[in-house]
């Protein structure tokens, strides 16, 4: 598939602002349009990432944002894939561009989140596995993170110090990110003194929920060239993977895994398949990656991603972290933005924010958190109910 160009990116800072999500999305969209030097009326397609926590306007996020920017008859779609919604919205925009349906598309996601645990919407749904896991077991999202963290300790000898060091590393990156919610540099002692949420994970190692908005202006390479943009950051590949049956790893929001009694699981695990897809589509390999933004819903999950994206072999992630490879200045910096630990999650905006960060990194505009000479970057993200996403960017 052909590449598309990123003409501009924009974000509304993450925080707990308590205002209408439309405001965050509009701010981000206007920044992205300014960054691209594109007028809203030039946009042929607006691709919204849905929020399910802000009522009907959130379900039709694309048209809600279009109306806020001024209805002008542009084409619209809205996408939902839980945490992967933003990547899905970008993929929809790419399809419109590459099919020739539009020259320029605006991708936007924003959210206003409640405090505390994310939970199912009100109502009684005994046939909804997301409802059942809360009601019958009390399995919150951090419970699943804790299960996998404990498993990592069992399989590879990971320690709570390893998990805490992920938080420490990412907090150092976030000091230089004005869009991050938390700019404080944390020490190991800070992590250790935060309360356990789901053993072995502590409060500072689990991403909170945040308000925020992020937007991208994307176009065909030809249209970018016609604007005088000859060397844009390009989207080279997008993955929107589902798992393959049987998936042997317990995952949100299920009460059980598939059974492997009669069919062996694929040699490539679900999360591994996400990176594999973009590597193949872009014709590159893990060794070519200069920078990565991965979904660290919990600090331990960042370590999993090192292996799942092929930066190292299974069981070696702790070494990669401890030798500084994944810090800015190392071989393969991961989460130079500070990651979800520093942002908290604004669900429909988060996958878009990952692309914003890589765009800044690859265009050498990341300021004090710049990864020197970064040319190829990868995002990784997973939305519950089997949405794996990744975006590969290059310059």
């Amino acid at each position: 598939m052909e590449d598309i160009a990123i003409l501009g990116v924009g974000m509304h800072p993450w925080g707990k602002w308590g205002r209408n999500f439309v405001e965050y999305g509009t701010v981000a969209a206007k920044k992205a349009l300014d960054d691209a030097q594109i007028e809203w009326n030039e946009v042929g397609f607006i691709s919204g990432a849905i929020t399910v926590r802000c009522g009907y306007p959130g379900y039709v996020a694309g048209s809600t944002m279009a109306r806020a920017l001024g209805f002008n008859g542009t084409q619209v779609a809205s996408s939902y894939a839980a945490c992967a919604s933003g990547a899905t919205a970008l993929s929809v925009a790419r399809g419109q561009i590459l099919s020739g349906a539009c020259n320029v598309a605006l991708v936007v996601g924003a959210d206003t989140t409640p405090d505390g645990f994310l939970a199912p919407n009100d109502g009684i749904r005994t046939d909804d596995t997301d409802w059942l896991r809360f009601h019958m077991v009390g399995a919150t999202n951090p419970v699943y993170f804790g299960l996998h963290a404990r498993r990592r300790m069992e399989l590879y000898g990971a320690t709570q110090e390893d998990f805490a060091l992920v938080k420490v590393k990412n907090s150092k990156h976030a000091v230089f990110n004005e869009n991050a919610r938390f700019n404080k540099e944390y020490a190991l002692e800070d992590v250790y003194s935060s309360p356990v949420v789901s053993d072995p994970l502590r409060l500072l190692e689990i991403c909170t929920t945040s308000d925020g908005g992020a937007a991208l202006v994307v176009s065909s390479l030809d249209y970018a060239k016609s604007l005088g943009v000859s060397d844009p950051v390009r989207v080279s590949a997008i993955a929107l993977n589902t798992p393959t049956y049987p998936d042997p790893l317990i995952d949100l929001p299920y009460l059980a895994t598939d059974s492997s009694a009669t069919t062996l699981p694929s040699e490539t695990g679900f999360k591994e398949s996400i990176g594999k897809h973009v590597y193949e589509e872009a014709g590159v390999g893990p060794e070519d990656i200069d920078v990565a933004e991965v979904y660290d819903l919990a600090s331990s999950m960042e370590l999993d991603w090192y292996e799942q994206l092929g930066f190292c072999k299974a069981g070696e992630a702790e070494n990669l972290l401890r030798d500084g490879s994944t810090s800015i200045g190392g071989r393969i910096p991961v989460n130079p933005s500070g990651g979800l630990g520093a942002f908290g999650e604004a669900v429909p905006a988060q996958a878009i924010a990952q692309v914003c960060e890589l765009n800044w990194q690859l265009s050498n505009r990341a300021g004090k958190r710049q990864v020197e000479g970064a040319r190829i970057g990868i995002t990784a993200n997973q939305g519950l109910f089997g949405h794996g996403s990744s975006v590969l960017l290059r310059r």
Partner: protein
Amino acid sequence: MAATFNIRSFLKDRKQTTVVKDMKIEVPAVEGFFTIEEEAHLIGGRFKRSGSYCFPKDLGGSDPNFPEDEVEEVLLSRFGKIWSYTNSAYPPPPPFIAAEPYEPIVIAAVELVKEKMVILGQVVNGYAVEDLSVGMTVEVAVGTLYEDSERRYLTWMWKPLSEE
């Protein structure tokens, strides 16, 4: 976060398996997931053609190589081995109904050997994460999820075997 879950309206008109114990009526919090007996079982599904299993019975993923498969109800193995475990130090939000005062619930992911699948469940009262280990053998039990003045609402739980 407002707790809007209403037990009374939830249970109204529902098909219920009832047991009377210690003057309280015991009912599954939701019907169809487990049997209430001394040696409790999880109620799962078995795909007639592929031979694979799922839990819960009607909410399992299916093998794409058997597109016309049908699920029949089966009782799953009573014993399994802990694949991993954790707890919830804070009370989960509704629709979980947290006891007051809240005692951290312990949760295990347990692998059933025959069915080759991992199933989540709370660990029975009296165990902390420090008492558990990966590979430990557990059996299916039934425990109280929440209760009111007349009824105990039950769910399935994992109970470590006493020898270990």
